[in-house]
């Protein structure tokens, strides 16, 4: 298996080319996260990258056979064999969740049921669909929603669902129906729905910024090359 070779080649430096011992295991771990097709291609490019940077330096683990017996206690397990990935639960390092490497997804909200759409979006933004999910770290993706003004709701919610907000002063409750809010600020409907499904707290507020909602069908994020959001819910499309 290509990945077995990847994980045993601990001695090779990762693409960041920093001479820290923990890097190689991290590099091998990183290449295997993205699913098997991509992982295979990544490991091919990775070994060629390793061949190039091998000329500059080599990351070594401490070889205990050259150390005299009475000094061997000085070296830690991780310095000798590399970090232990099987007995310690993996926790992402900073390089595992840089915003520039996260995938971007796009979804068209036309005639999609509001709640079901918001649920799928929230799952992808939080990162719960990934095997590397960590609750304290932002591992999710960015999601762009277009045609937000055409989102659908079932039943009589269009005229009966109320959106409330309070200004803080007595008697300051403002109530709007779904239809009125869709007339006024259509993006807020999807934002409100998704915000209710993301965790509340510092991390939740940061995750909310990864949602981009637009009224029409064009968006300014062409440079991020967004892919289609994979939706597994069969009842998300409003059938008339």
């Amino acid at each position: 298996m290509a990945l077995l070779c990847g994980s045993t080649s601990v001695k090779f430096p990762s693409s960041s080319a920093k001479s820290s011992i923990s890097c190689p295991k991290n590099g091998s771990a990183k290449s295997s996260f993205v699913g098997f097709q991509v992982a295979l291609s990544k490991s091919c490019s990775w070994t060629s990258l390793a061949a190039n940077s091998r000329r500059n330096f080599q990351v070594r683990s401490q070889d205990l056979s050259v150390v005299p017996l009475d000094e061997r206690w000085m070296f830690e397990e991780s310095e000798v064999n590399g970090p232990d990935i099987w007995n310690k639960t993996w926790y992402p390092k900073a390089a595992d969740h840089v915003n520039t490497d996260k995938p971007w997804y796009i979804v068209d909200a036309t005639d999609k049921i509001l709640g079901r759409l918001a649920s799928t979006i929230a799952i992808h933004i939080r990162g719960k669909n990934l095997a590397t999910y960590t609750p304290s770290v932002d591992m999710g993706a960015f999601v762009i929603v277009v045609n937000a003004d055409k989102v659908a709701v079932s039943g009589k919610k269009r005229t009966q669902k109320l959106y409330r907000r309070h200004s803080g002063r007595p008697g300051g409750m403002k109530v709007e129906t779904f239809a009125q809010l869709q007339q006024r600020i259509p993006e807020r409907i999807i934002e409100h729905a998704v915000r209710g499904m993301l965790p509340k707290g510092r991390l939740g507020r940061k995750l909310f910024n990864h949602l981009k909602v637009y009224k029409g069908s064009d968006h300014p994020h062409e440079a991020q090359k967004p892919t289609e959001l994979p939706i597994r819910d069969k009842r998300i499309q409003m059938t008339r």
Partner: protein
Amino acid sequence: MNKDKIFKLAKGFRGRAKNCIRIARERVEKALQYSYRDRRNKKRDMRSLWIQRINAGTRLHGVNYGNFMHGLMKENIQLNRKVLSEISMHEPHSFKALVDISRTAFPGNKSSVVLLEKKAFQLFYEW
């Protein structure tokens, strides 16, 4: 003497809790109680995290956590959740093999319901 110990444990606390002994003593007592409780909670939280990661990993292959574990139990594979979650992250091909083993052992509730209905239908017609 005891004050020094308390202040040593109160490092990093907010406001006067790290400087003033009366407040620091209360906060340190609470902190020690929390750490006692959380040494037990950590085991629960870790297991919950492993289960969430395994769930996400198996759903990529179209199987949910419940059916996956049932299939593994049927095949008497005794890998624990910690190791399964690490496999799902670091060795995706091996994990896919495990999911396939589980799927052959236990294909899932829906298909078994369909099979039962088909059997009942056949019996009805034969009678």
